[in-house]
């Protein structure tokens, strides 16, 4: 069985791993690193549950071979919070009722994170396109779109101006 040596950054921490060459990034995160926040749904690129941000782009971790991750910078749902403070996206998902069973949530959050990194003020249409590769069986999507919109730069600054408390 072939083993490959991989160096990559996950949530700001550098990791050196020896993986089997056929391991996917999804298995590497969940099995080798114990980061089970990233979910495994269809394993063939259809559902988006496994979405992580790789070198700034949203990708399906189930379709990336660990061998292709060498040198990459990966952000998973576990890396969204900083020192116990939730990311505005996480805050807004909670506030807008965008989480029901929660299985799609890590993937949705990471698709939204990649969107806002490149486009801090997306239109509703842009938000819908950004999450079109993420299936949700529970919410009907509306609350998720609202939550992402509320976490966008314009909304955040409006809420700040109006003195709204973004936290709990």
């Amino acid at each position, binding site marked *: *069985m*072939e083993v*490959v040596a991989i160096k990559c950054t996950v949530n700001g921490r550098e990791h050196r791993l020896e993986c*089997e*060459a*056929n391991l*996917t990034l999804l298995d590497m995160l969940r099995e080798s690193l114990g980061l089970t926040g990233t979910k495994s749904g269809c*394993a*063939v*690129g*259809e559902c*988006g549950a496994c*979405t992580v941000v*790789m070198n700034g*782009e*949203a*990708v*399906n971790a*189930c*379709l*990336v*071979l660990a*061998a*292709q991750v*060498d040198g990459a910078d990966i952000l998973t749902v576990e890396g969204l919070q900083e020192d116990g403070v939730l990311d505005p996206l996480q805050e807004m998902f909670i506030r807008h009722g965008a989480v029901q069973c929660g299985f799609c949530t890590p993937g949705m959050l990471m*698709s939204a994170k*990649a*969107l806002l990194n490149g486009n801090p003020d997306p239109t509703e249409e842009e938000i819908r*396109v*950004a999450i*079109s*590769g*993420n299936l949700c069986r529970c919410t009907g999507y509306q609350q998720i779109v609202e939550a992402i919109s509320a976490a966008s730069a314009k909304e955040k600054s409006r809420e700040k101006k109006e003195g709204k408390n973004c936290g709990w």
Partner: protein
Amino acid sequence: MRTLEVLAPETLEEALALKAHHGTALLPLAGGTDVIPGIRRGAYGAVALLDLSRIPDLNRIVDDGTEIRIGALATHADVVESAIVGAHIPVLSEACGTVGSVQIRSRGTIGGNLCHASPASDSVPALRVLGSVCEIRSSKGTREIPVGDFCISPGVTRVLPADLLVGIRVPKMRPGSRWFYLKLGQRRAMAIAKVSVAFLAAEDGGVLSDVRISLGAVAPTVCGAPRTAACLEGKKLGETVISEAVEMIQTEAKPIADIRSTEEYRREMVGVLLGRGLRGFLE
């Protein structure tokens, strides 16, 4: 997933030498969005993978004057975001923008889309109307094959066991060209095409010339509609001309029936998409 070996050369020369030595036993891996689900399905048998993603510059998009050269490893996202593509060959941005989802577009490459040779590969009808040429390389040299001749049957291309597809050369569209890429899928996102139509023509005072039409997901490979294109040649667009073209393409297209759609539905929808695109020019 079964165990496999992954070779990851750092240069194109090294990759070509490996391909010359191992031939079909070495399956090229670009973005993996077709290869990885294929391995899971057991579609490839015992192969090792040749990871092309470490080869520098194979994903570059450059303006060569009269042509745009797109490296085989450019992703659909690279194509959609490229200002060069947007300015000179926008029908390709439109087509690549309909592929899968954001996640699929960030990994899936234009070379992989061509080499997968699905009749539903979205970049192919657009590349075909643009008159693009594939650059195929082996350790012996470079060959060029027009996109229209590249795919032989589903999954089979003119790429030989010792070859790699290295890039695609796309002639720039003339300013003022009329074009569209319209795709009909099960739903708006994440849908493989049931039917797609790419259209490109020059226009002068409403009169069309050099009309090119390609159809996706209709036949076993992406195909043209030369009779319909000829029927639009030299015509001024209006309702009568459009209705004639719609009728003609519905007799010209010889659709397949498969899991995604029936022959009758495809025949009907090829006409609907052509009519919709052409009427868009009248607005």
